[in-house]
């Protein structure tokens, strides 16, 4: 269902990001020379809170913070083309849903089609079709008339995910999307993501600070050290999804977990704080 048959790619070339210090003297380097090539699959960006992984994700989405050139140096290439502003290929999903509280589930999912950009590109009938299909895919068809305040956290995140999926993005950028959910709901949402991904494979970049989540979802796990962020480790997981609880307790998985934690400790001298969820 992708817009093009070509597999999409993201390339980061020697990315450095610096922010001016609050006191006005000098700069704070949050990302330090990251080079990375991502291809379709679920790519986990794992690192401690505040290590700059969201900053990297924003760069891929072309979303710029105000007043600071991003990246400070280096380039982000999407399909070999420099990415300098928000683009159609990638859609972001945030931890804080960003659902409009005054709109119903259905209206929230249809939100992108209010914008001139998408009205010019997607016909009304096509939009209608995609909305229906996506509502069903995330399991919200029965809740279409509800307001976000009437939904649980997990359902709200389904709305946010659906709003991204109606645009049929080739790249899905997820910024700790399930970080605010309870353990059980998080598990359900992970299953949903896997299901959606299997039906419509694309390039997912999934930021998390949860080691268990990274091992449950990732085709590839990229471990980032804390400020400034550097790549501490980068490996593939070949185990097919859905990954059973048995696999997650297997020697292979436990070794990966230990490896991640050891790498992080070495790279950030104990400053890192990661979550291993139950």
């Amino acid at each position, binding site marked *: 269902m992708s817009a093009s048959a070509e597999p999409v790619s993201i390339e980061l070339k020697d990315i450095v990001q610096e922010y001016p210090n609050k006191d006005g003297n000098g700069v704070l380097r949050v990302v330090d020379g990251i080079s990375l090539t991502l291809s379709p699959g679920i790519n986990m960006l794992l690192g401690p809170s505040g290590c700059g992984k969201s900053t990297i994700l924003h760069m891929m989405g072309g979303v710029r913070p105000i007043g600071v050139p991003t990246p400070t140096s280096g380039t982000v290439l999407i399909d070999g083309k420099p990415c300098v502003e928000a683009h159609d290929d990638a859609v972001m999903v*945030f931890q804080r849903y960003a659902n409009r509280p005054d709109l119903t589930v259905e209206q929230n999912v249809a939100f992108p089609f209010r*914008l001139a950009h998408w009205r010019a590109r997607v016909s009304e009938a096509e939009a209608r079709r995609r909305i229906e299909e996506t509502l069903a895919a995330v399991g919200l068809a029965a809740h279409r008339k509800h307001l976000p305040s009437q939904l649980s956290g997990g359902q709200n995140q389904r709305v946010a995910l659906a709003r991204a999926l109606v645009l049929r993005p080739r790249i899905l950028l997820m910024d700790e999307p399930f970080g605010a959910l309870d353990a059980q709901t998080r598990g359900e949402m992970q299953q949903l993501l896997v299901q959606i991904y299997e039906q419509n494979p694309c390039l997912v970049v999934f930021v998390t600070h949860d080691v268990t989540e990274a091992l449950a979802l990732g085709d590839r796990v990229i471990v980032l050290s804390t400020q400034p962020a550097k790549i501490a480790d980068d490996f593939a997981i070949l185990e097919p999804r859905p990954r059973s609880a048995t696999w997650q307790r297997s020697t292979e998985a436990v070794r990966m977990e230990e490896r991640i934690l050891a790498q992080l400790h070495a790279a950030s001298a104990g400053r890192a704080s990661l979550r291993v969820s139950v």
Partner: protein
Amino acid sequence: MAETTSWNPYAPLSAQTTRTLGIGAVVAVLVLWALISATGLVSPNKLPAPWQVAKAFAYLAWDGENGRSLLLNATLWSVGRVVAAGALVVAIGIPIGVFMGASPKVNAALSPLVDPFRSAPVVALLPIMVMWFGIGEWMKVLFLFVGAVVYLIPMVRDAVRAVPQAYWISARDLGATPFEAVRHAVLPLAMPRIADAVIVGVSVMWTYITVAEYVNAREGLGQLIQNARRFSAMDQVFAGIIVIIAFALLSYQLMRYLKARMYPWETKL
């Protein structure tokens, strides 16, 4: 330890108790007022008795001799001025406030021109407004407008800025232009607080209406009070004040009700 309702801001209070306590307090003041008048402790020229005020109210409401209602006439004029000024405040103040909220540059330029007036005595501007706009209807409406708009603009600006940035970023990422992001993602979320600003603005106008109508008004509640004072008809002064308070309260409650109906999704703090 037993639950206490004193020194406990979170203690639930039934609607029944709330009503009883509220009405009780008003009745207590009325009784005290009646006692002071009945004992002749304070001269009726300074404090008319409740029944005198009631009589004055009845006279103002319907003057049988001349077959007219002074109160209805005055109220219509005052309400008309508040509505006219309110329309101006909404039509001019909200766009300015939204602009200031949506653009730090516009805010930096306009806030020194607007913010100081929030704490400045707007009443002191009255002589200037009389000089500029004369003593006619325009001056009264513009005075109400200025008095209210200096409260409204900063509130609208703050309402826009209080919307979490995540909504703007998310809309921009979905392909919204900066204008669309404000129009479709930020503004709808700011609406309940903008409605609060309008409510405050209208309440402020009710406090300024008497001042506006002190100057050369032939009609209006302020004029009615002013006129009664000139003839030392303290009972009519009291009746007039009570009507203004009643209208301010009524419009406040009505606007609160409308706001709750329009924005039922607003998260309760």
